[in-house]
């Protein structure tokens, strides 16, 4: 598959995976092995006060490029500090910026998201904001320096797939930076569709972590992203409401 470049960095795979909600660490590791993501997101959280347990960094750090997120943050202040803590803890300038405006749907607060993006870009971060499927907001995020935009297909963990493909296609058509479909993917065909709509990559977590067999679903997602990307580049046939026979209409017997 052709490579994806974000902020000048070539990424071998167009699949990004989250590391949350797996049954256990072994399943997480096996699933990442099966999915072969180019980026693995992690959350930044307080250490348990009981002391210092093994860190995800020790487990994944050598094999995967980790992308700290600001999941759960509902203010610019918390998101920016969480981003700075993530940069310090993981020694990376990249951040998946989340600014949640509604806990139930996990929809972003685009006003604060734009402000935090601007602030973090000025502070030298490579900012990948999780946003809604609004072409205008996506454009504004790119204008203030986002390295990519990551619109949702549907609510995080909902598994509803891409509810508004028209909006995603419009974002792809007008975005000056790469578009990563983030949130909503429930199964392989959703990931393939995201790529067919023109997205440059897919970021998913729950669809794999909570599948009955996460390892297998990770392999499925890896294949689906390739399938969708190839289909996009191949140029699909137009939709028509009537049939178009694939066998010759002439030369039938009995004519």
């Amino acid at each position: 598959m052709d490579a994806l470049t974000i902020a000048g960095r070539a990424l071998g795979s167009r699949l990004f995976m989250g590391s949350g909600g797996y049954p256990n660490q072994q399943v997480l590791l096996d699933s990442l092995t099966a999915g072969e993501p180019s980026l693995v997101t992690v959350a930044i959280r307080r250490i348990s006060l009981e002391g210092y347990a093994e860190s995800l960094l020790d487990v994944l750090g050598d094999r995967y490029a980790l992308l700290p997120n600001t999941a759960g943050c509902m203010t610019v202040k918390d998101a920016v500090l969480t981003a700075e803590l993530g940069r310090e803890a993981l020694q990376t300038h990249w951040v998946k910026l989340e600014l949640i405006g509604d806990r139930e749907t996990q929809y972003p607060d685009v006003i604060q998201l734009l402000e935090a993006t601007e602030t973090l870009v000025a502070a030298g971060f490579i900012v990948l904001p999780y946003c809604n499927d609004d072409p205008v907001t996506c454009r504004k995020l790119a204008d203030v320096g986002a390295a990519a935009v990551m619109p949702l297909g549907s609510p995080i963990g909902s598994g509803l797939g891409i509810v508004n493909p028209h909006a995603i296609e419009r974002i792809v058509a007008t975005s000056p930076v790469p578009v990563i479909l983030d949130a909503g993917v429930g199964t392989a065909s959703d990931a393939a569709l995201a790529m067919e709509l023109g997205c440059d990559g897919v970021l998913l977590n729950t669809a794999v972590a909570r599948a009955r067999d996460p390892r297998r679903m990770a392999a499925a997602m890896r294949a689906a992203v390739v399938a969708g990307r190839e289909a996009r580049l191949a140029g699909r046939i137009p939709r028509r409401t009537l049939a178009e026979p694939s066998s010759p209409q002439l030369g039938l017997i009995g004519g």
Partner: protein
Amino acid sequence: MNATIRVNGTEEPLAAATVAELLAARGISRPRGVAVAVNGALVTARNWAAVALAAGDTIEIVKPFGGG
């Protein structure tokens, strides 16, 4: 009454002179994978030993966890 600080949201007696001492008391010596903020400002590992703690300080000690 005793001087206290707030660590990761919990009130506790001020028993460490510096961030480094506070971390050491929690068995955290090396900085790898850990980050600290005091009163809302990041304290890089290089400054852990230099930054003194005072009564009323709010400290955050974080590390990466599984997330999406």
